[in-house]
């Protein structure tokens, strides 16, 4: 124990020396060679992950050059003819693209407005429960759908609310002859998408808010209560301000993913609800690129999506930094 304590600072020094080389006793090249030899097993360990990311992350990025080509499978990336920005010109004059963009923005806004407050409210409710066991139980049940696949969640919604589902059957029994099939009606689809997200993710999303609530000092509540603040005033002046930081952070991060949200959820239901209501940018890129085999056009839509998303994420983090938060990465 004592030897360990005595030796640790030396080792730390040696490490730092190796890292910065401020004494410059050995030539620089020998130093980095020594570091490379010392850390070679660490680098070796990162190789499997690195190789997979190079193949399935970076190679497709290079493949995006096809957005500027008229790609065909036989010529490949190297020999397909270059067409400049023609794909993008076609994209920005395509009514289908603008409809997909509008749908994306509308669906995302409705989803944000309807979904975002629910976990906060539920977390406050959970937090006010005194019985820890009951709270834990209900929280576990509420988080369970987070682990269901989208296919499963939509099946469940279809069986409960769809044409032959439980709710329409119940309505028919009680005199409503022809209830709307919410699973296929374009008008209700906007809200259906949000309802599915609320059902699936609310319980899980409370966890982060619960942690923020637990971090609020009880003495604040006590002092306020002693000063005569009732439970609603304590909620307004202590609880909600305590949640402000995490709420802003999550909200901003959400905005960063505004264009790419809910791809599987939309794609599964696209056939049932139709393109005019359910086509978003991600499914648009998939439909043109894979289903219709117009690779370059789909890739152009994908590149637009990826590029705009990076801008959104960076902008969202800038805003987070303005609010004094760390965001996804630090300043």
């Amino acid at each position, binding site marked *: 124990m004592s030897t360990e304590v005595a030796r640790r600072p030396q080792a730390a020094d040696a490490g730092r020396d190796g890292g910065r080389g401020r004494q410059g006793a050995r030539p620089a090249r020998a130093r980095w060679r020594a570091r490379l030899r010392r850390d070679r097993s660490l680098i070796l360990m*990162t190789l499997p992950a690195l190789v997979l990311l190079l193949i399935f992350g970076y190679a497709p990025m290079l493949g995006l050059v096809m957005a500027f080509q008229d790609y065909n499978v036989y010529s490949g990336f190297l020999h397909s003819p270059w067409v400049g920005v023609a794909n993008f010109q076609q994209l920005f004059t395509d009514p289908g693209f603008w409809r997909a963009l509008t749908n994306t923005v509308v669906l995302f806004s409705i989803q944000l407005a309807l979904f975002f407050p629910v976990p906060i409210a539920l977390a406050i409710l959970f937090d006010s429960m005194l019985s820890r066991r009951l709270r834990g139980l209900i929280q576990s049940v509420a988080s369970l759908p987070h682990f269901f696949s989208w296919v499963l969640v939509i099946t469940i919604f279809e069986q409960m609310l769809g044409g032959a589902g439980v709710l329409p059957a119940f309505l028919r029994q009680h005199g409503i002859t022809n209830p709307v099939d919410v699973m296929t009606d374009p008008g209700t689809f906007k809200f259906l998408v949000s309802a599915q997200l609320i059902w699936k993710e609310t319980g899980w999303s409370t966890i982060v808010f619960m942690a923020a609530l637990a971090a609020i000092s009880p003495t604040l509540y006590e002092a306020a209560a002693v000063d005569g603040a009732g439970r609603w005033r304590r909620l307004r002046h202590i609880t909600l301000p305590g949640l402000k930081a995490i709420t802003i952070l999550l909200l901003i991060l959400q905005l960063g993913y505004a264009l790419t949200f809910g791809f599987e959820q939309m794609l*599964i239901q696209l056939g049932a609800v139709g393109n005019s209501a359910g086509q978003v940018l991600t499914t648009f890129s998939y439909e043109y690129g894979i289903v219709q085999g117009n690779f370059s056009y789909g890739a152009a839509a994908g590149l637009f999506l990826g590029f705009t998303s990076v801008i959104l994420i960076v902008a969202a983090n800038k805003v987070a930094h303005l609010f004094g938060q760390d965001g996804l990465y630090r300043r």
Partner: protein
Amino acid sequence: MTAIPRIAEGSAATGGSVRRRRRRSRGRPVWEEPPTTAGLMAKGGTLCLVLVIILLPIYAIVLTSFSTQGAVNNAGNGLVLWPHGLTLNNYKLIIGGGVVARALVISLAITAVGTAISLAITILAAYGLSRADSFGHKTILWTMLITMFFSGGIIPLFLVVSALGGYDAYWSLILPSAVSVFNIIVMRSFFASAAAEVIESARIDGAGDWTILRRIVLPMSKAVTAVIALFYAVGYWNSWFNIMLFMPADSQKWPLQMVLYTYVTEGSSMAGSGTSNVGQYLGRQQIATVSLQMAVVVLTLVPIVIAYPFAQRHFTKGVLLGAIKG
């Protein structure tokens, strides 16, 4: 200190039942006013509503999967809400053979193999990046992080995987999504903080990195490993789009989610009729009933519900690690 007069006040207001009430509501701080009846009812009602909304569909689906055709007909060819005419036949039919049984085995195999591969790669990479002064770790880390912000998108990925012969091959369901940079970061931050002291002293004692990882780091990070393993396993079990992308053609090779999806799309395109072609996937015609379809749904649910309680106590830790360090 200030709380003492509040107790007196409270006991004066509530009279003789103070002892009982205080014992029952052990957790309530003394300065907090006792809840109103209306408030309690609203709270209880909301919580019951939450439970019903989550559990009722699951209950109805499980019950329907155990129901006879007669019970399903009684319920208007929809989900059964009251137990009536129970049977095991639906499961016997499914387990007996056909596409669903095969899909179940395929899904389990992909989940097991995929989780093992992902976990191994993640642990290695996280440990490899966990030392603050190691050679090249910043470059490697950034190389990984960039893929979180920008991706080439679906179409180039599809072409790359196809060019490597991945179309209709099972590895295309595992390798392209095997690495989650997010999970590497979560694990790395655990190794770099919680385990840092121990790792450092082991290194000073002359242990090599492979020994440290196997003998010291792994045994002390069981909780975080369990959470990450669960995230990966759930991801593989639930993944659907990569099947749609890489092996949509051959229904004999489909995992369970794809079989279920085929049923969903048919169900919605035939809304109201309540029948579907699941019989075709079972290799027998004429037996497609809602209860059989629900048995398929239950099969996709069961592994998750079994794994859930074991990993559940670690969730908060896992989520918060992600939220804070991500």
